[in-house]
């Protein structure tokens, strides 16, 4: 990592944190809250006796304490206040309606009309959560997602929340899967797998759902191909440990192979595809460039609450470096930084920066917090859907696929074609039956199998299985009693 003098110093960061603690009701110092966010924060108001005004949602009250969920700098938190410290409480929901201007007594509760919410038949917003876990492109694949989305449609979902936490462990590299891979691992070309998956959301939902659901991505690990998927939605939230990246290395693509002009073509077309993903969600394509191209330099400054980008190194301490030109030796990330996810040769989005850049709308660690951020926490019903089972069933199937395939091939080999004509005919029939089973199994999971590994362990591809069936038919034709 190139340590420029313009990077934020630890002292600045600490002072910002102190300010946040001292003034919990303040909006993010880096990015003013949007009107929608302000509306959310304006729901319940507690005014303390020292004059401090706190906005949020009261979630619990006792005779002595009031517990409120507040949001600070995009991060939801729960705080508790003693009633004897409170001058007044103004609530926005509930049956009573008392204007704060009437001057409620200390500790009394003022109520205003509840905010309108989307109105399904039962008056509640129906929320459906689809967990996307496991290896991207294998466990997270279009078929189970399509099934889960169909279930959500059947159950009348208003909100589809995709909880994305794709596997980014050493298991992907043949390890035990116990160690998280660093940010600088590269899997840009999983973009093309994403392009096979995302139409179930971007194309099929608009076509098949009469009432369009709101699509929300909640990101924990969105790495490799998983980094592109949330970009199709304009509503992304991050987990506090969330990260989005793992798509660097495009500048070194096909290094050493062929001619540079063709390598550049390959980079160009890939970035064209990647830009398309970002544009679908309404995001700045330069962020994707910074995530993908090691030779791309990008900085930003917050101006009027919005990020302003510069395709150069920072030129003042109000600017923040997102990615430098790691292809140049003097800017290349040190190994220590790469291991710790502190490198900036390519950008890996973390909650704070993602929020600054407008990629993330907020940082939430629980579903409750997310629903609060979405302003539906007061009036929702969580649909008891089959998504978890559907995704698990697919994952288990994928997990068992190589073993099942191996078993079928062993069974195929064990079938003998011998004896008299009828026995030979029966043997061939059994072999063809086994080949058809193999074919069905391969076809079921083919979308999620890395083409380089189809089928695994050197077994013949489907076209070869078809040929073998035809050869058995021909052998039968040639056989004589």
């Amino acid at each position, binding site marked *: 990592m190139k340590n420029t003098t313009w990077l934020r110093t630890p002292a600045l960061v600490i002072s910002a944190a102190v300010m946040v603690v001292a003034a919990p009701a303040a909006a993010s110092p880096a990015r003013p809250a949007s009107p929608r966010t302000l509306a959310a924060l304006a729901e319940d108001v507690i005014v303390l006796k020292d004059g401090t005004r706190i906005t949020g949602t009261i979630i619990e009250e006792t005779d002595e304490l009031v517990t409120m969920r507040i949001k600070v700098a995009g991060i939801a938190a729960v705080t508790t206040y003693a009633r004897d410290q409170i001058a007044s409480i103004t609530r926005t929901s509930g049956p009573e309606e008392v204007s704060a201007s009437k001057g409620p007594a200390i500790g009394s509760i003022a109520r205003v009309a509840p905010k309108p919410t989307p109105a399904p038949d039962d008056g509640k917003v129906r929320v459906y959560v689809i967990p996307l876990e496991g290896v991207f492109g294998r466990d997270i694949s279009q078929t189970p997602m399509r099934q889960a989305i169909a279930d959500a449609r059947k159950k009348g979902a208003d909100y589809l929340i995709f909880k994305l936490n794709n596997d980014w462990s050493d298991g992907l590299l043949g390890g035990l899967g116990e160690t998280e891979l660093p940010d600088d691992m590269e899997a840009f070309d999983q973009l093309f797998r994403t*392009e*096979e998956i995302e*139409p179930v959301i*971007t*194309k*099929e939902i*608009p*076509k098949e759902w009469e009432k369009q659901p709101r699509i929300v991505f909640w990101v924990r690990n969105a790495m490799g191909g998983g980094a592109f998927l949330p970009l199709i939605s304009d509503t992304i939230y991050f987990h506090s440990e969330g990260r989005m990246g793992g798509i660097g290395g495009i500048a070194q693509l*096909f290094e050493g*192979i*062929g*001619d*540079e*002009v*063709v*390598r*550049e*073509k*390959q*980079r*160009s*077309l890939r*970035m*064209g*595809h990647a*830009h*398309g*993903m970002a*544009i*679908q969600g309404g995001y700045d*394509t330069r962020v994707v460039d910074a995530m993908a191209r090691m030779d791309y330099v990008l900085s930003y400054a917050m101006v009027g609450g919005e990020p302003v980008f510069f395709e150069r190194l920072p030129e003042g301490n109000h600017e923040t470096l997102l990615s430098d030109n790691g292809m140049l030796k003097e800017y290349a990330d040190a190994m220590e930084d790469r291991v710790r996810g502190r490198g900036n040769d390519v950008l890996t989005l973390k909650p704070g920066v993602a929020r600054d850049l407008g990629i993330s709308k907020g940082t939430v660690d629980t579903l409750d917090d997310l629903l609060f951020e979405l302003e539906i926490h007061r009036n929702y019903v969580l649909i008891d859907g089959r998504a978890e089972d559907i995704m698990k069933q697919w994952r288990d199937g994928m997990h068992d696929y190589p073993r099942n395939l191996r078993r079928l091939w062993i069974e195929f080999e064990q079938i003998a074609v011998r004896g008299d004509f009828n026995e030979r005919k029966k043997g061939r029939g059994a072999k063809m039956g086994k080949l058809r089973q193999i074919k069905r199994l391969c076809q079921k999971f083919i979308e999620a199998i890395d083409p380089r590994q189809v089928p695994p362990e050197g077994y013949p591809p*489907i*076209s*070869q299985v*078809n*040929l073998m069936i*035809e*050869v058995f038919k*021909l052998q039968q*034709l*040639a056989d*004589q009693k």
Partner: protein
Amino acid sequence: MSGKMKQFPGLMAGVAMTLAAVLAPAALADDKVVMNDGRVFEGLIVREFEGWVWIKIGSGSLARTELLATADIELILRDEPNLQPEAEAEPRQQSETVAIASSKTPTEPAARTGSAERVAIITLGESGGKDMVGLYMTAHILEEIIPALKKENVDTVVFLINSGGGALLEIQRLSDVIQDKYKAPDGFRTVAWIESAISAAAMTAHCIEEIYFMPEGNYGACTGYRGPLIAMKDRELEEVVYMMEKVSARGGHDTEGQIMRAMQHFRYPLSCDINENGDVTWYQNEEGQHLVNPEGRILTFDSRTAAKYGFSGGTAKTLEELEKVMGLTEVEWVGRDTKGFFYPISRAEEINMRFRDKTYEDEQRTREYFTIYQAAIQLAEGEQDKKRRGKFVGKARSQLNAIVSMVRNNPNLALFVMNMTEDQFEQWVDDQRQLLRDLMR
């Protein structure tokens, strides 16, 4: 594979006749127009516009065209294509009665309002490995579907393009068919709607003036190469650049093909000026007001840059948005609403999709066709009993028919799969048929 090559002109002519019969377009439609005064006109409705209907009656030198005022028409009986939607749609009769001014929804194909523009979506490439230019996107199929488009009274063809490129040899052919057949005066308003047009796919679309993007759309990266990323060079490169200069002139996106050159090679930077009227002047250098593509990079437009520099006429995600950017005030989307598709499937598109599906299946099964064919021949050659030999010859014949059907559907497969020209393939088929006959003697 048997390599016995013999000349049998008679049989070859037979094959050609068979091919011609199979490839012949469907017979012209029989539309009927019933007038208020009871007269009935039978023929092919060739045009409808602002209260008038043109119907072509008779054929050849005896054909005449009648101009009928819609105010005098009681009803029109149209000869409809026999569409077979994937699911959910009601079965429809071959002909149906359609009121002239009836409202049109995508589920009611081929009904026409008086002045509405009839628009058909034709896909060029699709996901799932069916996108290669030259294999799944061919001049042959574009030409094949024209009769169906005309039969459906299509005014505007929207090519929805989703392809990562393919064979250089097909670009000129595709460009010529689009230019000479689709954009011809008696053709169609021709539009490209870009989901993804990379390399040869972009080079194909480049002859079309009217281009729109999907939000995720991309267009460019046209560098020619072969094998392990070996670039075209020297004269070979210059020839392709020149070919694309001519194609660029057809599309009229710039004056000298500067945009395409920037997509082809990184020695061509691209910049532009945009005046207060939005007119764009392109420069093959970095001196313009807007640097579109620096030297050392290959240009690929995304939907934002394409719109910003006026290369696209706008960005549309849905048919409704496309109508808007195309400036269509009255539109009839030709085809039937079909499960799994966001656009109606016209008869022409159905043919186009079937072509791709068959090509895909044939591509997967090519090895099977040839292996079983050869094995059956060998078994037949080794069999003394004529009756049993006949079974093997029959098997070989069915495999040969599969090969012929494969190439009939997609003539380019003769080249891609067998490295033969179409003529050589026909000769080879003749030889094989003779071989099979000889085996039965």
